[in-house]
C-alpha cells in the first residue's frame, strides 16, 4: 500500500481518527513535561531566570519555519499529484504556523525587554520572522477570500511556492541590511559552544512536544476541513439536482 492511499479522504479519516488520541496524549505529555521541566531548571548566571523562556521560544521558532516547509511540500503534492487531502492539510497547517510564529515573536519580544532593553529591535532574525508572519497572514487571507475550493487550492499553492522563494530572498536581503543582536544557533552540532545539558534536555523534550502538538492540531484541523468539504460537496450535489 502506498502512502498516496492515505490521501483518499475516507482512509485518511479512518487512520487519523485512530491515531489522533495517541498523538494528542503524547503531545500533551511532552509539551507539558518539557515546559514544566524547563520551568524548574536553575537560573543562568548571565540571563537569570529568563533562560526559561528558551523552552517556549526556540521550539515555537523552529515549528514556525518547519510548518511553512510542510505547507510547501503539501502544496507541491497538491499541484503535482492532485491529492485533495494534502491541499486541505496545507490549509489546516497555516493557522497553526501563524500562531507558532506569533509565539516566537511574542516570547522574543518579552525576552528582549530585559536582555536588549527594548521590546522590539529590527534584528535580521526578528525581521525575517515578521516577514514570515506576513506570508502566513497573506496565505490564510487568500484561502478565505476564494469561494471555489479548487481554485483556492491551486492559487494558494502557487502563492506558497512564490512566497517560499521570497521568504528566502528576504532573509538574505535582511541580513545584508542589518547585522543583528540575536544569538546564533547554539544547538548546532559543533561541540564547544553547546548549551549546557541542564537546559538542553528539557529543550529537546519541549521541541518534541511542540512537534507532536502541531501534528495533533494538524490532524484535527485537516479532519475539520475534510468534513467542511464533504458538507459543501453534499450541498452542492443537492443543489445541482
Amino acid at each position, binding site marked *: 500500500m502506498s502512502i498516496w492511499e492515505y490521501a483518499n*479522504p475516507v482512509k485518511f479519516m479512518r487512520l487519523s481518527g485512530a491515531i489522533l488520541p495517541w498523538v494528542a496524549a503524547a503531545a500533551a505529555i511532552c509539551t507539558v513535561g518539557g515546559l514544566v521541566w524547563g520551568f524548574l531548571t536553575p537560573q543562568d548566571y548571565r540571563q537569570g531566570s529568563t533562560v526559561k523562556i528558551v523552552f517556549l521560544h526556540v521550539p515555537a521558532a523552529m515549528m514556525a519555519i518547519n510548518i511553512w516547509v510542510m505547507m510547501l511540500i503539501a502544496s507541491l503534492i497538491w499541484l503535482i499529484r492532485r491529492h*485533495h487531502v494534502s491541499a486541505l492539510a496545507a490549509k489546516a497547517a497555516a493557522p497553526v504556523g501563524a500562531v507558532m510564529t506569533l509565539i516566537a515573536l511574542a516570547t522574543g519580544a518579552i525576552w528582549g525587554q530585559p536582555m536588549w532593553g527594548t521590546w522590539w529591535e529590527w534584528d535580521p532574525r526578528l525581521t525575517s520572522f515578521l516577514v514570515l508572519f506576513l506570508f502566513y497572514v497573506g496565505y490564510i487571507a487568500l484561502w478565505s477570500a476564494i469561494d*471555489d*475550493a*479548487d481554485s483556492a*487550492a491551486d492559487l494558494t499553492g502557487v502563492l506558497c511556492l512564490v512566497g517560499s522563494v521570497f521568504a528566502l530572498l528576504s532573509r538574505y536581503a535582511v541580513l545584508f541590511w542589518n547585522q543583528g543582536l540575536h544569538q546564533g544557533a547554539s544547538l548546532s552540532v559543533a561541540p564547544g559552544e553547546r548549551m549546557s545539558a541542564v537546559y538542553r534536555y528539557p529543550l529537546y523534550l519541549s521541541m518534541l512536544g511542540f512537534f507532536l502538538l502541531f501534528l495533533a492540531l494538524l490532524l484535527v484541523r485537516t479532519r475539520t476541513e*475534510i468534513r467542511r*468539504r*464533504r458538507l*459543501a*460537496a*453534499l450541498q*452542492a*450535489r443537492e443543489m*445541482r*439536482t
Partner: protein
Amino acid sequence: MTLLSVHDLAVARGGIRAVEGVGFSLSAGQALILRGPNGIGKTTLLRTIAGLQPPVAGQIAMPEDAAAYAAHADGLKLALTVAENLRFWARVFGGDDGGIGTALAAMDLAALADRPAGFLSAGQKRRLGLARLLVTGRRLWILDEPTVSLDGASVARFGAVIRAHLAQGGAALMATHLDLGLAEARVLDLTAFRAVPGRRAEPAGFNEAFA
C-alpha cells in the same frame, strides 16, 4: 472537412460535472445549436471547447487555431471607438485591417465606426461583439447566447451573417434559448446528458472527491 469533433466529453462547473458523455462532430458548412434549461451546462461546455477550462473526461479534437469564442461579455473597451475595438482584435488574431470595413458593414455598424463604444446602446454593443468574429478569420465560431438584447431586425441580420459564414466553409456551435431562424442548423438538447451526481474515481474537483 471536420472542424470539431467531441467524444464522450464531461465538463464540470464549481467542481461538479454538469454534463457528461457528450459527443458530436461539426464539419465545414454545418451549424449546431445547443439547447437545454438554465444551468444545465451550456456555457460550461462551450468554455471547455474554447479551451478556457480543462475537460474532466473525453476528447476534443479540432484543427489548431480554428476557433473563435464569443461569450456574454463582448470584451469591448468603452473608451475606444467601434473601429479601434475591431482593429485591436483583428491584430491580435494576426489579421490585417482590411477586414474591418466588411465586418462593420455586415453588422450595420459602418455609421457608428468612429463612436466610442461606451456611447452605444446595449444592442449595438452586442452587434459590435459579433462583428469581432468576422475579423478573427477563424472558421469555427463558438457562440454563447449570441442574440441576447438584440431586437428582431438585428437577429435576422445575424442569421444572414451566420449563413454566409457557413457557405464559406465555416462552422458554428451555438448555445441559445431563442429561435435564430436557422432552419439548417442541427439541434442538440443537453438535457439527456445531464451528469449523474456522485463520487467518481476521477473526481472533477473537491465537490466530487468528497461527495
